[in-house]
């Protein structure tokens, strides 16, 4: 099941390879079919998922069965390394509460991304091959339970992303693409070294061999005492934690490693922005929760305050930057930085409320930001500009668009009744109840205020009032006596067309529904989060020492 959901897009990519490049519609439909099939599979997995099982670590006895679900485990490569025993790499997939939410999100956003890619005309074949490769890599990252496999999927994302920004991006795309590539690779090469170090430090309790299994690595009793990342090697464990954290923080992106994100978003085509903000950023925080924290829980406990402060900086700094932007897409990009700060803050709380809030925020941010970027794309398609002050009074002429924008904007600022509110509330409850992060939480609340400021201000400037003299569209009085607006060289429907509605309405429904009744998603994650909090708790560590 999981293999299928991971490799469906790449199979579609291979099919597309055989389709002549002039058959653009067939290529698009093949991609869409794969994406829809992925969604169906995600729903099936969701239905079959038993939310009571904890995940994170192995069940009693060291086997992942009974803790993880939908496990697929095959020996992939087994190498004889002489005196170092054998190198065992497994094809090891499985889901728990952490990953199932992300699997659902990834399937959803991938499908929306395909729809959003429909108008792309340039090198359609190449585009969809790369897009499908990216979709496979993303999904693979979330379900891989072998560190080696995870790393392969993690790095596999970079190249398609580079080309998708670099070929189909805006005017400054070369710079943005290579900056993205270099930043993420810089983060991940350290991960490679830590991965090797962990391999030599961890023994799979079932087989007695060294292992790359993340499940075995998450239990501290599987570490060799005097190995390089074993419990005695305090300095290297700190070093490993820090470099892993930086590697994942670049992806989040966390201040001060965030500078690639606005560039990448501004240059990327709309669907790629949606994927980037909707899924890729979550890989950073997912990596922290799956790998970085549970593997080095004592270092995590020692760095709670730092992580919390960095989260608060993200929240406030991101909001300030968003406030200063003239380019709507850049504003949304900085709002992403701000909102991912809540995730970091929730993680720093290190209690169930905060962690549930963080994971739920990851899901909600995925859906809400996808909406935001789609909406930015809608107006950019029509006006060929994203400058906020080139619009005005749009609510009068594009009422449906304005309505959807309002839902998305209010969800983003955390209006009660919409999903963003619940996750942010949980984050703050968690952060406030934890001793270490209480003061940070108090300061971070300011982020909500600034968030409301830039969102409401942009809403007011673009949608309310009257058309500005230098606006990106003309005002005409139609035959019926009403005023209409007209975008230069835009032949399509003025307000949202069917394709755009198909993308946006499901997202809006999800955002509203999960704001009123969060349990369908939140219920999946609670037992895993409780387990994670237990694994990370200092009590366990003292017991080990």
């Amino acid at each position, binding site marked *: 099941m999981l293999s299928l959901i991971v490799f469906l897009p790449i199979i579609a990519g291979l099919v597309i390879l055989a389709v002549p490049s002039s058959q653009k519609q067939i290529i698009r439909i093949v991609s869409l079919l794969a994406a829809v099939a992925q969604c169906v599979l995600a729903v099936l997995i969701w239905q079959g998922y038993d939310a009571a099982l904890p995940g994170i670590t192995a069940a009693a006895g060291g086997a992942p069965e009974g803790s993880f679900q939908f496990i697929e485990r095959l020996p992939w*490569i087994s190498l004889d*390394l002489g005196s170092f025993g054998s190198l065992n790499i497994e094809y090891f997939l499985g889901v728990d509460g952490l990953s199932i939410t992300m699997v659902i999100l990834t399937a959803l956003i991938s499908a929306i991304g395909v729809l959003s890619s429909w108008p792309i005309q340039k*090198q359609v074949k190449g585009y969809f091959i790369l897009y499908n490769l990216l979709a496979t890599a993303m999904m693979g990252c979330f379900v891989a339970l072998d560190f080696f496999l995870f790393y392969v999927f993690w790095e596999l994302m970079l190249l398609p992303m580079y080309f998708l920004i670099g070929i189909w991006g805006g005017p400054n795309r070369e710079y943005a693409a290579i900056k993205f590539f270099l930043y993420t*690779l*810089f983060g991940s090469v*350290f991960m490679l070294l830590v991965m090797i170090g962990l391999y030599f430090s961890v023994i799979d309790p079932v087989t007695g061999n060294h292992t790359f299994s993340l499940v075995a690595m998450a239990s501290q009793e599987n570490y060799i005492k005097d190995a*390089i990342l074993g419990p005695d090697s305090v300095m290297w464990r700190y070093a490993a934690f820090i470099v892993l954290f930086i590697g994942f923080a670049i992806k989040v992106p966390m201040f001060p490693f965030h500078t690639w994100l606005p560039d990448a978003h501004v240059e990327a085509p709309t669907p790629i922005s949606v994927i980037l903000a909707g899924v890729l950023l979550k890989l950073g925080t997912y990596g922290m929760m799956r790998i970085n924290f549970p593997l080095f829980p004592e270092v995590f406990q020692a760095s709670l305050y730092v992580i919390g402060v960095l989260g608060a900086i993200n929240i406030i700094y991101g909001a300030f930057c968003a406030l200063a932007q003239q380019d709507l897409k850049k504003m949304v990009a900085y709002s992403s930085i701000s909102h991912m700060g809540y995730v970091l803050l929730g993680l720093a709380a290190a209690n169930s409320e905060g962690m549930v809030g963080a994971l739920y925020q990851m899901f909600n941010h995925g859906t809400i930001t996808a909406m935001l970027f789609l909406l930015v794309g809608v107006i950019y398609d029509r006006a060929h500009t994203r400058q906020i002050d080139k619009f005005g009074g749009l609510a009068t002429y594009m009422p449906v668009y304005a309505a959807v924008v309002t839902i998305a904007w209010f969800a983003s600022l955390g209006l009660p009744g919409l999903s963003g509110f619940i996750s942010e509330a949980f984050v703050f409850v968690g952060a406030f109840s934890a001793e270490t992060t209480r003061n940070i939480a108090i300061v971070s609340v300011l982020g909500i205020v600034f968030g409301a400021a830039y969102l409401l201000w942009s809403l007011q400037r673009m949608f309310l009032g009257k058309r500005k003299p230098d606006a990106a569209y003309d005002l005409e009085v139609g035959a019926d006596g009403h005023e209409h607006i007209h975008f230069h060289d835009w032949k399509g429907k003025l307000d949202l067309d069917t394709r755009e509605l198909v993308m946006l309405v499901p997202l809006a429904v999800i955002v509203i529904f999960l704001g009123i009744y969060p349990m369908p998603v939140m219920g999946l994650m609670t037992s895993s989060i409780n387990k994670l909090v237990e694994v990370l708790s200092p009590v366990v560590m003292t017991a080990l020492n």
Partner: protein
Amino acid sequence: MFQLPSGAEIESIIATLKSSVGFFVPEIWLSVLFMLLIVVDLAVKGRKNNLLASVTALGLAASFFFIYQQHSLATGEIFFGMYVLDEFALFFKYFFVISGIFAVLVSVADEQLNREVQSIGEYYALIVAMVVGMIMMASSTDLLMMFLSMELVGLTAYVLTGYLKKDARSSEAALKYLVYGSVSSGLMIYGFSLIYGMTAETNIMKISAELARHGYDPLVMMLASLLILAGFGYKIGAVPFHFWSPDVYEGAPTPITAYLSVGSKAAGFAILMRFFYVAIPHGGEPFQDIAGLDWLMLLIVLAVASMVYGNVVALWQKNVKRLLAYSSIAHAGYLLLGIIAMDELGTQATLFYLLGYLLMNIGAFYVVILIANRTGSENLDDYRGLGRKMPLAGAALTVFLISLVGLPPTIGFIGKLMIFSALLAKGSVYIWLALIGVLTSVIALYYYMLIPLNMYLRESKQPDDDHDRTAMVHQVALAVLMILTIYFGLFFAPLTDFAKASSAMFGLTIY
């Protein structure tokens, strides 16, 4: 002074020679092939480029049979300890024959070479001679034999580098290569003479025994190691013995560049490993060395300098062949890391990395040749828009470059993984080396990506037809190389097992 040997001695010498010949069949076959090529060249009239290439390729392929048969022979010394047959040598025999076949294949692809060169017969004969020389480099266990085999490789390489007589760059490159080569050979033979002076032996096993028995002056040993490293370092193209490589890589006919970058480098690594591992296995220990400096320390300096210098200077290159030259300097640094680990895992990693390097570097140069056939240029600027005009070549080159960076799922990633695993398996002593290794590979990403950047992200300046005229045979060969690069990045066990089985060296005591 010089005594004539007695009759009995002569008889025993002849008997040893006779018995040794049986262990020397692949080399003899290749020497026959060398002469056969010259005869065919003389006998056949008219245009015969493809005929000669086929004879060479088939002849090289036939030598697989003779090499394969050597697996059943006992490992050991032959020709009075001049030469050895062991798993390590066998690995390199396969390696050089395969790279020789690839060299022939890319030579056929190169239109400029086939157009401008009149006497292509000697060209292929010299490639075969170089294969023989490199095989002998990997198998020599005597200082004299080592020197002779290195000179055989060197001399053929000088001639091949200058093969494009009408091209001034080619002649310049050959001259530079010759001058640098002579100097480093001179330094190396001086180092050999110091070793001989200390031990009165030329066989590396006996040198090792003598050094262990009598001890040595650390200062002289240090000097000798340094001088010998000058010779080996020149062959592997490591900083600071790299000065020849950018000019030679740029000026030489591209097939020869490809061949030198893989074959000659691997031969240098083979001889370096065998000499230092067997002759001076303990570095400074158990004897006190000056300030802890031994050849291992020298190698660490060389490795770091090569990784940093090669990767940083490559950033400013505008010519793809020069860029790949600097990248090959950097790869010499990564390969040295595996040798520094000085254990079975390190040797295995080095050998595996060489296999990966063979695939991805030959592949990259293959595409460079195909692109030069179309555009007549190797400048980065002229690569603009080629990704759409030559879809397969562009995709293949991107895969090879990603592999050179060391990103999964390619063979280059597994190579780096093995090298860094070998370092980290030593505990925390070499973590800093691994750190330099990974950080420089981030730099490498930037300049390698300049090529796909030009091919895909930029439009070509002159509009011309989109028709891909690359011959089918080259398309197929390229696709095979590309698929292998990815395949062995996912299922690498056969190659790593082969590398592990090949890490056994005759007379080795360190692991």
